[in-house]
């Protein structure tokens, strides 16, 4: 039984793969739009049959007329529902980034062709975005949150676009099978005090320390300075924007090191590091990242932080290959996998 199911599933995936090749952009046409009656549509069909029998039995011409009109309307609605998707282009503009376990925003662009695309639903697994309307010839940018299961690349196998307009009796759907993958950072876990000189990241203390530090030059705020470096407490007191300048620290950069947590599991280490990076960025401290096989030179600022986090996220992970049929890093992919790759 399971064997047959597997074979059928594989064939199904292969068939879909032929019709809908992996691409960040997909134009929908008769070739790749699927259409079936919804549950309500099936019941509607049964109802029409009952009405036809009623018409036959009571020899009632008007019931015949009503039945035929509704039946023809059903077929017309099939055309209409199909046209909602036909000519439409769905493209993945940007696969976003987020912490593992959170929703990763996928930015999508829906461009309508000759016909308007009305009341469409974009969905990935359990995440849905309803009521997407695109007038004919226009496009619309939407963000679809894709829930991530663990750190690493995140690529849903298929992003589903569906419409049941106008009557909800039929559903037409198709998929975008994206190439680009989003990224889920490791979830930060407060690191033990092995490497950091800062106690518990307590703000008051750290600021006091900053204030007391000799090598911190205090200077007036200039355009371009990061807000994290502004001494906000001082601002509150005196109304002056003063920035702590860490010029003096340049010679002794802090290195965040993968090997600094002996005995910890790989994923846990990465989580510690993620927490530390966030901490450093918040403090505006200059730091570098030392991962086995990858070294990021010390720098400051959120862009640097993101670069480091991205390095953590994909460390040891291979980017999903184009041919991979299955989802990558989504919750369903993890549930379906025989042995979980995540901690």
């Amino acid at each position: 039984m399971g064997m047959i199911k597997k074979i059928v599933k594989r064939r199904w995936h292969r068939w879909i793969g032929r019709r809908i090749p992996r691409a960040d952009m997909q134009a929908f046409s008769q070739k790749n739009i699927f259409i079936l009656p919804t549950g309500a549509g099936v019941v509607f069909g049964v109802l029409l049959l009952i009405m036809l029998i009623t018409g036959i039995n009571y020899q009632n011409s008007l019931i015949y007329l009503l039945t035929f009109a509704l039946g023809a309307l059903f077929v017309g609605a099939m055309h209409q529902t199909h046209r909602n998707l036909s000519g439409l282009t769905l493209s993945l503009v940007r696969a976003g980034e987020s912490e593992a376990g959170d929703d990763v925003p996928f930015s999508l662009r829906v461009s309508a062709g000759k016909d308007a695309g009305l009341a469409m639903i974009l969905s990935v697994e359990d995440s849905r975005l309803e009521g997407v309307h695109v007038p004919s010839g226009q496009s619309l940018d939407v963000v679809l949150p894709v829930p991530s299961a663990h750190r690493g690349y995140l690529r849903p196998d298929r992003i589903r676009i569906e419409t049941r307009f106008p009557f909800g009796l039929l559903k037409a759907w198709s998929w975008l099978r994206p190439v680009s993958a989003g990224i889920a950072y490791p979830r930060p876990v407060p690191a033990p005090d092995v490497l950091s000189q800062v106690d518990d990241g307590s703000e008051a203390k750290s600021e006091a320390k900053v204030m007391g530090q000799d090598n911190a030059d205090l200077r007036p705020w200039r355009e371009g300075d990061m807000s994290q470096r502004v001494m906000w407490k001082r601002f509150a007191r005196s109304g002056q924007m003063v920035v702590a300048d860490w010029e003096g620290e340049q010679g002794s950069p802090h290195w965040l090191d993968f090997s600094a947590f002996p005995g910890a599991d790989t994923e846990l280490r990465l989580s510690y590091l993620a927490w530390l990076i966030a901490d450093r960025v918040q403090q505006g401290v200059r730091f570098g990242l030392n991962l086995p096989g990858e070294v990021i030179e010390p720098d400051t600022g959120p862009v640097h932080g993101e670069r480091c986090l991205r390095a953590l996220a994909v460390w040891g992970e291979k980017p999903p290959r184009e041919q991979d049929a299955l989802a990558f890093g989504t919750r369903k992919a993890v549930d379906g996998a025989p042995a979980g790759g995540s901690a």
Partner: protein
Amino acid sequence: MSRMAGIFRGRTPAGAASTDSIPGAALLWLIGSFGLLLLPQWNRLPWWLIAACVVLAGWRWLAQTGRVRLPGRWLRTGIMLVLTGVYIGTVEGRFTVDTAASFFVLAVGLKWLETRSARDFYVLFFILVYLSAVNFLFKQDIFWALLTFGAIGCLLIGLQILNAPDLPGSLKSGWKRLGLLLVKTLPVVLLLFMFFPRMAPLWSVPLVSGEARSGISDSMRPGDISNLAQSSERAFRVTFGGPAPEYRDRYWRGLILDYLDGETWRQRDAEPFQRPGRVAVDGGVGPLASNQYDVLMEPTDQRWAFSLENSVAASDNVFDAGEDLFRFRRPADSAVRYRLALEPGPVQARQELSPAMRQRYLQLPGEANPQARALASELAGAHAPVQLVNALMTRFREQEYYYTLRPPVMPRDGIDALLFDEKRGFCAHYAGAATFVFRAAGIPSRVVIGYQGGDAGAGDDYLIVRQYDAHAWVEVWLDGRGWVRVDPTAAIAPSRIEFGLREAMEEEGSFLENNLTSPQRYGDFAMLQWASLQMDRINYHWQRWVVGYQGQSQMDLMSRLPGGIGLRELGYITAGLVGFALLVAGLVSALSMRRGTRQDGFRQVVGAWHRLCEQVGVPVRNGETPGALAERMARARPAISETVRIFARTVNSHYYSAPTATQADEDAQRLRRLLKTMKRQLRRGHETESAPRTPQHD
């Protein structure tokens, strides 16, 4: 009390959550449709049921606006039990289509209280669609039919709003979309309607409605028919193949009352029991012969058909029941059409009346009305039967007898009172009294009831016989001549027989005096008459050609088409039609697809360029940029190097800008021109370069 207080929503979020999932506008259209669908049933449904439906739907709407909460499970169950109890109380165990339809309405009403999700919305949608089909069982007029189709339209608008609640301008575009869909599918619907084989009923269920039908009944008390005279409802419509008979000869015989029971005339033999079933509504096809006539009768829930004297059945849904009367095989529970033919002479001329029959038509009760009996024996002593009949008619004509819709009450010895004291009565009084006198005088006689008259409809196409044309008259047996019609009313008020009740009652002013809404009452307003007759004509043709389009009409229509078309062929045609319609739909969408790609001229011209590249021996590589391809082409064919570079640049700039539709068109045109130039240059270059190149090729 506390229960009631609980209905009103406090600050509990549960109430808010329960009604959120259905958009208010969609619900409103659904409720509106329900209201429309109840209208055709207003006089059939018990009043409490209509009231309950209004309250329940209103409750649901108030819950939507947030003013009240929907009832919890216990209250809901309570309401359901109470209403079902009331229903069972009123139905009293009768199970007919009518009571089933009422229960159906009750179920819809109760469903409003648990319409919370889109799923419930669909359930209601399905029930309401079926309710509209049920409506058609009872009301088939064009007005009610249009109303019902309108209600279906409202339902479909509601569905569209449900499926796209936040779409701006959804109402207008919704109607437009629906209208377009209907127009597009109309040809298929009409063809299906014409060609779908009309099969015989699969099983027979009586369509007995509890509605009180107006019309004549099978017994007659003296005041009965004057009640009918206040109704201008249609009884039936008649189309003649030849000229219609004179007004005074339009006696539509319905049934014979031959037994006087006190004051009441009845049928001696009750109508035989009839197992329930549907009447065959389909009578007679093809053009009418000059002696034939078609009757389209409104439902009466009775088996009798109305016919002129000396008729024979021409359609097989009526049969001759003896005494020149016609009957259906089942009660006429819906409008029914039948066809009869007039014979030149009496159909069942009998020269003899058997003693048993003679006794039957001489029956009289007890000792009542001594004066009338005395008159009878006096007349019998002086005259032979024919002269006796004439003598009584002369008495009616010459003495001061009045034909009136306001007869006095004559409680005891009514016939004596009528003949000797009051001398005022309606047709039923005079017919009963005359029969009484004839019988007392030893002449076999009987009361016949039916209709007399009928006014021309619009365009003189047909006659309309209305309830106020109901009439009672007498038939007497004269040896050697058989049954002869004798109408006392003709003697007392000739204008009734010549021109109808309106003329007869002109002096009294009592024509339809209690019926303020009838257009016939206002005969002086020509416009009103005209409009009413035009409406009737539309309805007549609707009934005749749409509602009455059944098996025989279909076969008749098909027989006029070339080739023998039977039920089986119709089945094939229907299947073919559906297949053909689907095929056309598929072709249309495929063509529009093709057109869509053709309109994308840009892609097409690039494709043409790629083909040109292949032709000149520069195969297009996968993933190659236009620039790279152009460079390779320029190297292969220096003659076109300039043009092909410009071409590639244009393609590139098109790719990297986000052009509008018109810009894209311009780009495509420019590219097309460039491609043409390229081909021209190639040809010219080929001519000039042909000499050095030829050896390489050979």
